[in-house]
């Protein structure tokens, strides 16, 4: 009854109403961002007095925005590669290894996930200051890798655990060495998990701002760090433009993921 939409009776109306309000609540800010990005008034009037592409032109011509965009992309790619590589190592140890303390190790590998990022941010800031890594690209990579790695480990380990161990055995009996079997047979078999690991790692780095504040320097700013700086100073339409582009990017990414999932189900 309660799980059959057609038999909910009055409850259905209530449920639809709450769901409708929730959808408006979830979508309104995103729609607002897009509307503001075309708003001709500089003072963010809503509803807008007119429409313009001026802010897009300004943002796209601004080398600062482009620089921080490129920084974010570079950082995200390096972090993703490192995170997937280390995630594979950890995954093989956790899913295929058999050693005392394995479960403790699994727990330890996941702790960065529950660590409040402000604590991690200042802890790394203090350490990296001493090691002269603060404000460097390497420092940024290491810091975001700490945050991204647990997601990668979770995705890859669970994919490995769902993959029949005898696939590895079968490949070895066919003449492949252990790591040859893993690369040629297991990696393609868990490509779904690797894809998730990559997406989560990239998004973690791409969207991260708290740790990034402490890793950034005036010459090295990721997109979120620059956005935070702009938001703190003034509510300029530039940010609406950047935000709108980011929403568009998210939609594209979701479409890509859906396509990949569909493909791997076949």
């Amino acid at each position, binding site marked *: 009854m309660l*799980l059959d939409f057609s038999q909910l009776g009055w409850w259905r109306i209530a449920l639809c109403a709450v*769901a409708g309000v929730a959808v408006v609540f979830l979508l309104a*800010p995103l729609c607002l*961002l897009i509307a503001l990005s075309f708003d001709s008034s500089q003072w963010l009037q809503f509803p807008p007095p007119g429409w313009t592409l001026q802010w897009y032109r300004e943002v796209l011509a601004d080398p600062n925005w482009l620089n921080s965009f490129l920084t974010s992309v570079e950082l995200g790619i390096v972090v993703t590669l490192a995170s997937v590589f280390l995630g594979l190592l950890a995954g093989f140890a956790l899913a295929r290894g058999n050693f005392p303390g394995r479960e403790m190790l699994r727990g330890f590998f996941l702790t960065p996930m529950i660590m409040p990022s402000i604590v991690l941010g200042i802890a790394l800031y203090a350490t990296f200051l001493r090691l002269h890594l603060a404000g460097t690209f390497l420092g940024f990579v290491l810091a975001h890798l700490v945050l991204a790695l647990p997601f990668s480990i979770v995705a890859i380990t669970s994919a490995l655990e769902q993959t029949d161990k005898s696939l590895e055995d079968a490949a070895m009996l066919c003449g492949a060495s252990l790591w040859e079997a893993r690369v040629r047979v297991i990696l393609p078999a868990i490509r779904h998990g690797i894809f998730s690991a990559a997406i989560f790692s990239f998004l973690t780095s791409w969207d991260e701002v*708290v740790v990034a504040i402490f890793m950034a320097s005036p010459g090295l700013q990721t997109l979120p760090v620059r956005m935070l700086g702009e938001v703190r100073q003034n509510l300029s339409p530039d940010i609406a433009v950047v935000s709108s582009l980011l929403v568009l990017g998210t*939609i594209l990414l979701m479409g890509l993921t859906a396509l990949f999932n569909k493909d791997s189900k076949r």
Partner: protein
Amino acid sequence: MTLTGTVQTVPPEKRRRRSRGFAPAVPVLTFLLLCFTLPVLALLLRSVMEPHLGLQNYAALLATSTYANVLENTFVISFIVTAITTLIGLPLAWFIAVAPSRVGRFMFGIVILSMWTNLLARTYAWMVLLQDNGPINNFLIWTGIIQNPLPLYGSMAGVVIGMVYIMLPFMVISLRGPLASLDPSMFQAASLCGASRLQSFTRIFLPLLLPGLAAGGLIIFVMSLGYYITPSLLGGAQDMMLAELIAQQVQTLLNWGLAGAASFVLLVVTLTLYAVQARYLAPHGLKRS
């Protein structure tokens, strides 16, 4: 052939076999120890070392009324955010689970879209929405519900709205699994037993979802405790939360000792709550019954 006549024994392999496959974990372990464990321990150590050895930072944190207010604020706001998120998240997740699959998938897509959208973009949108002359206040004045704009931006209400927006997807996702595992025939059985919809809801639906609600609620509560950006952008000076306090101590006051102490408090609460979750709220399948 005479050599193979004796029985071979392979005892040296025995010990090594017991801990097989640890090697690939070594680089990961090393990395996390160096870039995670050591920095955090060093920070916590500073809380009792600076400016000199002792618990003075902890005393200051609890005794100074400003700092104590921040602690109280943090817990109050986190609690309100968790409660509201649960109240909206449950019906939304329920709707997604039972609605015709096309509608359900569309709604879930919106939830994921909002979750994956850049945090600052979302917070920025709320900064605009919540202004005194922003769309929400304008709309309310236009309808005649209020005469003067509500003080949303720079207030606790603003912080709560912005954080509920960010946390809502987590609740929907937490409830997705538990909802999917409910058996529809259970509710048919309940109604044949004579239960009304309300009785089915309170006696079967809610109890079965309780572990999911508790898990989702706990994650949201703990995340809220350590949240920095959204409260600092949407709240006023009097709504400061713990994470902002920590950042402020480091960035403007260079008071590493107090920042370390506040971090320690945040960490202890976080880890304790997660430990409680792991012990009591683990999914049914993992519990030994």
